[in-house]
């Protein structure tokens, strides 16, 4: 019986290898386009690429009345016309996905000289960590795992990735808001996001006639949930950025962490100085943790004016052309560390 099983097992293994070859030459490419387009973009980008720009919606969102719809990365490219800057973009992406994208370059003969990675302060918050979009982001990584292509395709169908339900993610998010203690250097009455949010929800803003200003309250609550956290080494994004930083160091690639602008003035007027304190404290933490010989943290946190944010009624990092141009210029300035000779003053 054992001999018979062994023969069958070997036969099955050979069939699998054959099927894997057939799959790789038939459907694999179209599946990559369908499920992991960014991985394919990285794999197909030419090896003479100088700089990769990894971003999310902030890079490619524009206002309807913008005179140019150029992305931050393309605007940045204006300062370095001789450099080949390749832009890889996906909505709601975060450090975990960027790390995965970097790994797609493993085994290349020639690596880029620099990588610019978008660092969105909100991506460190509980709402983004436990976002319902996370499952589809996790799904996008399955096709490029270190298994045979056919196996990866099957794992995708088996939903073999972090595929928690929306309800479970919501539960995890609420738990984090309720239990994670906020640490301030200044006296403050609220200890958690939940407490702070409840405090704001109970009449935090009044209209001139003394009624609750529900619109403002709602937005203020949203700001609290988006920015009220203390960064530390246990944050999953920090763990991922640590990995990214280490990988770049090993490969000898200069890493630029493009910390995006947030609407600080609005956060101040809506919620107060305590929230701004946390935002700045987290910015300082990131700079302190990552700024090194090999890594540059480009601090844009307070660079863009409040009115240059496209979404005034929500927390996003979507800027109009003025905002994008300012950030692109700042990134271009930072890149001078390596590419000073190639720099031209574009605007």
């Amino acid at each position, binding site marked *: 019986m054992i001999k018979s099983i062994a023969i069958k097992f070997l036969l099955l293994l050979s069939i699998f290898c054959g099927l894997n070859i057939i*799959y790789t030459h038939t459907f694999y490419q179209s599946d990559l386009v369908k499920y992991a387009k960014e991985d394919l973009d990285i794999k197909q980008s030419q090896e003479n690429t100088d700089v990769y720009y990894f971003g999310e919606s902030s890079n490619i969102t524009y206002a309807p009345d913008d005179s140019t719809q150029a992305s931050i990365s393309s605007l940045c490219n204006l300062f370095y016309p001789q450099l080949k800057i390749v832009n890889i973009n996906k909505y709601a992406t975060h450090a975990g996905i960027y790390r995965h994208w970097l790994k797609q370059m493993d085994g290349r003969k020639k690596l880029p000289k620099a990588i610019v990675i978008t660092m969105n302060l909100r991506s460190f918050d509980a709402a983004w960590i436990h976002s319902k979009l996370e499952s589809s982001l996790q799904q996008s990584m399955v096709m490029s795992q270190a298994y045979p292509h056919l196996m990866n395709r*099957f794992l995708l*169908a088996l939903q073999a990735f972090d595929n928690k339900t929306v309800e479970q993610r919501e539960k995890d998010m609420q738990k984090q808001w309720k239990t994670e203690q906020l640490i301030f250097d200044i006296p403050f009455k609220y200890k958690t996001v939940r407490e702070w949010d409840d405090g704001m929800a109970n009449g935090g803003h009044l209209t001139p006639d003394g009624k609750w200003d529900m619109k403002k309250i709602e937005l203020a609550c949203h700001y609290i949930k988006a920015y009220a956290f203390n960064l530390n080494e246990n944050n999953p994004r920090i763990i991922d950025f640590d990995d990214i930083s280490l990988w770049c160091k090993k490969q000898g690639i200069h890493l630029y962490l493009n910390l995006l602008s947030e609407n600080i003035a609005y956060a101040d007027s809506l919620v107060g100085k305590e929230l701004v304190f946390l935002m700045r404290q987290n910015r300082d933490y990131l700079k302190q943790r990552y700024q090194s010989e090999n890594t540059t943290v480009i601090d844009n946190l307070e660079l863009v004016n409040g009115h240059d944010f496209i979404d005034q009624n929500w927390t996003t990092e979507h800027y109009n052309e003025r905002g994008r141009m300012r950030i692109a210029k700042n990134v271009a300035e930072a890149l001078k560390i390596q590419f000073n000779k190639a720099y031209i003053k574009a605007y």
Partner: protein
Amino acid sequence: MLFNSLSFLVFLPIVVLLYYLIAPKYRWLLIFIASCYFYMAFVPEYILILFFLILVDYFAAILIERNQGHKRKLFLIASLTCNILLLFFFKYFNFANQNLEAFGSLFSLHIKPSHLNIILPIGLSFHTFQSMGYTIEVYRGKQRAEKHLGYFANYVLFFPQMVAGPIERFQTLGNALKAEHRPLLENFKSGLRLILFGLFIKMVIADNLAPHVNLIYDAPLQHSGAEVLMAIIFFSFQIYADFFGYSTIALGSAKLLGIDIMDNFKTPYLSKSISEFWSRWHISLSTWFRDYVYITLGGNKVSLPKWTFNILVVFAISGLWHGASWTFVVWGLLHGLLRVMESYFSKLFNFKAKDKWNIISVFLTLKTFALCALIWVFFRAESFAKAMDIFSALTHNPFFGLKWHELAFPLLLILIMIIWDMALYTKRFDHFMDEHKAPVRWLIYSGLLFLLLAMAGTQKFNFIYFQF
């Protein structure tokens, strides 16, 4: 835990391996632990409901057996009441209240009944029916009450069939669970073949049809009649592939443990009549209703009007069993009505379809499929209004507006399904494979394996019958 998940594909071999490694007398404990673990992957605390159900029916059966006369009946009624109340509480409470509210509003009464915001325990209708079947059998004297609580618990909990059937009788599953099984190559071969085929049917056919069906059913009025017609046909195959796929994996998983459970499907869409369809579709439920409801009501030994009434009652309950909504009741009633009409007409014209295939039987098969497909609309639509939208959309531009490039793949899948059904008309997949020589068998394995690994649907679709 879903059959089409990585966790199950790891869980099953571990259980099978341990099952044959440990001494036979402890195997019941392994099955019990494995089944609890399997069930608790959904909503862990709901296992307590199952334990309650097991204890009630375990003791009820013993008491029925030990007592005589009206006491026996009393214990049976107590057991059935417990089961039905449990089912009612979790499945029908909100439905009953909605109807009460609607009924009250007819008389301008503003009844505001409470609404339970709870998730239906997965497979509850299956466990309760299986368990009720057992106590009825003990009451009828056809089965002795099981004294070993562990074996009885396993009969209710047995993980391959616990969440969506087949609804087994204790005479078969209960005794099979007690038997001592040796690791036989034949069982492994059969089991693995069935699992491969079941996964293929579910993950390739059903899961690739589902997105097309959902797209149309979500907004039927935005699509042409031809597209809606396609969705109706696709859903008929989706639900078949989904449930048949589940049942086949269940069969294969049990077979790996040396346990035979019943076939729940026998190519139902090749039926020439509605009555034949019900002898081939969800067989375990049909036979349950036949044995415990239809026969209790008098079976066919009653007058024609009474028989008609009985058939309609059985089908209406069967519809309600599927879901707490009037759409399911209508689905059941329509099947019942067709069943009755078929019987009247066949008596009137003294017509009986022949087993042999000819042009008439092909026509009858197509007619039966068309009727079933149309009635499935009530099963799939979330409400009457949605069902009506589907039928209304059917009349708009019924012959054009098809995007053939999008339909080519699902149509190909349906063709594959039809070919398989024709091949498996009188036999099960594992037996079908036995009839072929090794090169043909391995060619079929390779084809199925390739389609499964490379073409399985990538969206998450739970087994449709899990919700019941």
